[in-house]
């Protein structure tokens, strides 16, 4: 009898979700005795809420949202078991040749920011790290799909974006993301926090630890497949959702693999693992950002106990 797992993505189906669907399609989940249903999501923070409410057992979502909730409601907060994005996708996007030369130039200017997005929430922390006054920046709430266009129109001088989304949006808009725009990654300013990965509910962790291991193993196998043959991964996406743009999703997948997943750290520790010291730094940043009542232990938000063997996580 397969263990049912309800799995929520962080967003609508995209190239970067290839491994989840591939693991399901190729039967990797089934081999582990799992019956995984994958639902599309409404944001990487909402993944945490969805799991905490009990509607989902596992999902792809934001580490920082876990930290925040682990400080307030530790008993229901999900636990990250497979940290897929090693590098933060958060960046400030500006127009090349515009008024913003350095992050400090943002003072007195307008930035567009999606209210639910981690890049927005982390902006004060970015200001601290980069040494400018976030209070001096006028933040305008904008929907994610409007960020680039409003920047191009000049309604805002900068946008707080996910590079993996924005980079491709700009290509979609028919512009060159590298020459027409300037990127200020949060990581480069010293905010080297983690972002999205696979998280599970504490209930699943307690009741079916073997299922968690199995799920992570299946995903890791699928990731290896996708890294070896990204086109095949995107083909699965295209098969699930014929309306997605295979070419674009392939680029998105490539971008994520290059910029977010493959890093020196993940090369050394393997995909899915975290650096304990870096995680502790992240936790401190989030605690200070939100004035959290407690400082969660790194072990409370991340567990390496379910990581598959290194050979499945190496590249």
């Amino acid at each position: 009898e397969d263990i049912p797992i309800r799995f929520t993505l962080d967003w609508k189906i995209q190239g970067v979700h290839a491994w989840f669907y591939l693991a399901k399609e190729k039967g990797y989940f089934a081999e582990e005795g799992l019956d995984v249903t994958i639902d599309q999501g409404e944001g990487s923070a909402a993944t945490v809420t969805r799991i905490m409410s009990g509607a989902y057992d596992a999902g792809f979502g934001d580490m920082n949202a876990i930290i925040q909730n682990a400080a307030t409601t530790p008993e229901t907060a999900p636990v990250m078991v497979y940290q897929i994005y090693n590098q933060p996708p958060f960046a400030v996007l500006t127009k090349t040749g515009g008024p913003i030369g350095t992050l400090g130039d943002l003072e007195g200017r307008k930035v567009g920011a999606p209210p639910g997005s981690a890049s927005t929430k982390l902006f004060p922390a970015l200001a601290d790290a980069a040494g400018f006054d976030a209070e001096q920046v006028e933040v305008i709430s904008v929907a994610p799909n409007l960020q680039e266009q409003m920047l191009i129109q000049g309604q805002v001088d900068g946008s707080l974006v996910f590079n993996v989304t924005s980079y491709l949006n700009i290509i979609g808009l028919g512009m060159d993301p590298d020459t027409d725009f300037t990127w200020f990654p949060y990581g480069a300013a010293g905010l080297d926090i983690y972002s999205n990965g696979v998280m599970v509910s504490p209930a699943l962790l307690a009741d079916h630890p073997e299922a968690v291991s199995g799920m992570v193993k299946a995903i890791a196998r699928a990731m290896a497949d996708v890294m070896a043959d990204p086109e095949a991964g995107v083909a699965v996406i295209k098969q699930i959702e014929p309306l997605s743009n295979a070419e674009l999703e392939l680029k998105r997948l490539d971008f994520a693999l290059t910029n977010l997943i493959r890093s020196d750290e993940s090369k050394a520790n393997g995909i899915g693992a975290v650096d304990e010291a870096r995680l502790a730094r992240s936790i401190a940043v989030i605690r200070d950002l939100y004035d959290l009542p407690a400082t969660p232990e790194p072990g409370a938000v991340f567990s390496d106990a379910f990581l598959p063997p290194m050979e499945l996580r190496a590249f």
Partner: protein
Amino acid sequence: MTPAMRKFASAALIVGVFVFWELFCLVAGISELILPRPTRILAAFWEYAPAIWPHAWQTLYTTLVGFVCGVAIGLSLGVLIGSSRLAYDTAYPLLVGISSIPKVAVVPIFVLWFGAGTVPAILTAMIICIFPIVVNVATGIATVEPELEDVMRSLKASKWEILWNVGLPRSMPYFFASLKVAITLSFVGSVIAETVASNKGVGNMMMIASSSFNVPLVFSGLMVLAVMGVSLYALFSLIERRMAGWAMRKSN
């Protein structure tokens, strides 16, 4: 004007709107990313039609299920509010309050309770369409001429019989009017729910299309919604002519 001429004129006018849109976009040079031309939308629809159908069916299905439940609830509540002063004073403020809340804010709660998928869409389609029906049925019943009710009361008819033979028929024209509003709201409701929490449906499709900057496809989705809305409107119009035609005797 003969009926045939009128049909033609109205069809011509509707087509005219689209022609104007096309020309406006061409002349003003509106970017495809902001507002695609109707021909581009049609082309996108044509190109992706096989992939659009399952989404369209899903949305039609959830919308109709939600709508039917909503109509049933709305009708009952409307009758209650229209016949009882206490219900009027109590339920009206509650309903107004609930309706002032954007449904987008409520959908995530449904997801937390029922998971993403069909149920939140049906629920949203349902609750969003109740209020307009309630309002019109309640108003229809509350404004029945007492003389017509007296006919029934002199026969010692029960409240239920009065409702069935006078209150409901009298409010039919307004009930059908509210259905026109309700069906459009139901579509909006299910699509909103789908954008938040579903793997299928026009709302989901539009999100996917917009994330790959396929704006003509997004607008194809909107067109599909509009066409489904208008088709159901046409259906209700037919039923309306049978059931509430008596009230429109001017045009006869």
